[in-house]
Structure formats: C-alpha cells, structure tokens
C-alpha cells in the first residue's frame, strides 16, 4: 500500500489530544477506516475532515461515540434532503413565471 496520503494515528492522537482508543472505537462503529501497515495504524487524509468533526463533537459538545454515530447518520440524511430540496427548487422554476 502506498502510504503517501495516509497519516499515522499517533500523529493525530498527539495533535488532537485524544486517546488512541477513541480512534479504535470510531473504527469499530465503522465511522473511520484504519489501515495497518507494518504494525503502524494509518488514516487516509481524505477522512480527516469528518474525523475533525467527530473530535469537535466529542470535545466541545461532550457527545459520546454512539452519539456521534447517530449524529452522522442524521447529518447524512440532512445532506440528502438538502440536495433534494435544491433539485425540487430548480424544477419548481419550470412552473413559475
């Protein structure tokens, strides 16, 4: 595996001041994907955006891992609904003068 775009979890643990178990728990719930290469655990940099959101929810709002899972499912629904709303609004213009 090419690890060029991967970030070692240890770096993230130090940077965000979170426990290593936090990442393992997120991984168990399927919220992040951890890759292991030669006994080092990595996370793809594309998932950093979502991970930072999860850390903020955890640190700033006291939301636990299960809560984060629930929130993320709901956020996905909001995202889908917002996209649908844009499509519907665009279609509505057909019928408006």
């Amino acid at each position, binding site marked *: 595996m090419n690890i060029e775009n991967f*970030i070692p979890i240890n*770096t*993230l643990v130090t*940077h*965000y*001041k979170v426990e290593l178990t936090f990442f393992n728990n997120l991984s168990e719930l399927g919220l992040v994907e951890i890759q292991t290469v030669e006994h080092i655990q990595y996370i793809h*940099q594309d998932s*950093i*955006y979502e991970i*930072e*959101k999860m*850390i*903020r*929810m955890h*640190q*700033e*709002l*006291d*939301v636990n891992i299960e809560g984060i899972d629930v*929130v993320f499912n709901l*956020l996905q629904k*909001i*995202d889908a609904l*917002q996209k649908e709303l*844009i*499509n519907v*609004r*665009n*279609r509505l*213009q*057909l019928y408006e003068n």
Partner: protein
Amino acid sequence: MAFIDYYKVLGVDKKATEAEIKKAYRKMARKHHPDLNPNDKEAERKFKELNEANEVLSSPENRKKYDAHGENWQHADQYEQSKRQQQQYNGRGQQADYGGGFSGGADYSDFFESMFGGRSARGSGGGRTAQFKGQDFNAELHLDLKDVYTTHKRTLTINGKNIRLTIPAGVENGQVIKITGHGAAGSGGGPKGDLYITFTIDNHTAFKRDKENLYATVDLDLYSAILGGDITVDTFDGQVKLKIAPGTQNGTKVKLKGKGFPVYKKENQFGDFYITYEIKIPTSLSEKEKELFTELSKLKNL
C-alpha cells in the same frame, strides 16, 4: 455598535454561577454548533455569539469587567486607566493575561473588541479543537445560464490567490464542486484544506431549464395554427425552422431532440428542447375581419 447582553445570549440570570454558565453554554452549543447545522449561516452567527458570551462570562476577570461596565462600554477605557493607576499606586501592577490560543472562530463583534481589545481573551471553557487539516474555504460563484452552455475557463481570486478553473458545461444551479488542496494550510504537518465552490446560476433567458432539458413557450398566430405553415423558432444557440400542422391545438407540445442543454461532463451530449405552442387569438379586429369571422361562424353553423 450595539451593546450585547451576554447573559441573554446564554439565557442565564445575572447571578448565574460558573457551573450554570458552563451548562448553558454547552446546551446552546449543542443546538447551534456549525457541525450540526451544515450550510446554515444563521447557526454559524449564533455560535460565534455564544462563544463570545462564553469567553466573557466564563472568565471571572472578563465577567467582572463586563458586569461593571458592559452597558457603558464607552467608559471602559477610563475604567482601565483608573485601574492601572490604582495598580501602580498599590505597587504591584499585575496586568490581566489575555494570552491564549483560541484557534478558529476568532471573529468578534465590535462590542467585544472595544471592551476586550479583540485579542483572544480566552475563557476557561469552550476552547476549540486545534485543526490538523487546513480550514476549508467556501466560495459562491454566480454565473449566467448562457455561461454554462459551454465548457469554459475562469480565473477566480480566493483569499488573494488566483485559481484557474475549468467550468464544465451543464453545471447545475446549487451544485457544489470540491477543489482539493486549495483551502488554508494545515498545522503540524496536516494536509491543506479544500475549496468548495457553490454555483448559483441565474437565468435571464426565455428558456426554462430542468437539468439537461430546456422548455419554452412559442407564440403561434391563429392562421398558422388553423391552416398550417412554417415558423422559425429560437433555440438556445440558434434558430430552427419548424412545420406547423394544420389544426394545431393550443398547448401542443413538440420535442426537439438534442436541442436542449449540454449534459454535465458528457461531451457532445445534449438534452431535448420542449416547445409549447400558445395560440394568439386576434383581439382588435377591423370591420372587415369581423365580417369575415362572422361569415365563417355562420358557415360552421350550417
């Protein structure tokens, strides 16, 4: 510049304890946190206000100053001056320490800046998480429907940097595209943020668009509708000649295949163009016309 009632922002009493303030802040933050309110500018504004209120009220030093001079913020400087004199007099000039790294959201109201100097007067609670990946930038690009009929290049200036962008034909109103690595620099070796561009497409044409299909209403004179004939119709990028069948009804729809809008990211593929005929009934008739129409109506009744 207006006074901000930070107690009201957090929904607490003026006599609220530190614990009550912290609890109120947490509760409000859970409601208005930007991560929980995607694309909601109002929530973002409220969250900033909350953080500001929390910074002031959760720090005993800031709260004291705010309580004493909040509503008379114009006199805050005088207060500071007299305090400094007092400190000198006492011989132990202990300046308040306003240091601290409040990363992200360091965007204060004028009121806050006038009282606390706009420096990050970090409170005891509500410290933001240090970002590893650079901040994402969001930009909105307004284009005319005519602009997105063809794939074209455009140079955007975002945060002082020029970005050359290819805008594919057929971009939709409200569509968001992500440009990786064009956000702010990361910290601690983290990756750069991304740039998200939301397209707003204004339509000033007579055509209505639904994805790759176009719609328009075409006026048809009464005689062509009855007797048939040839008309020229404007398409998005030119004109076409159409045959009108005798006895064409009002509201008849005609589909012109491939004369619609380009399909997004599919080269040389176009949607269809739907025409609806609207028959125009003559309104101000001359005497002669009236006579002839009357004659026609009599023929019909025979």
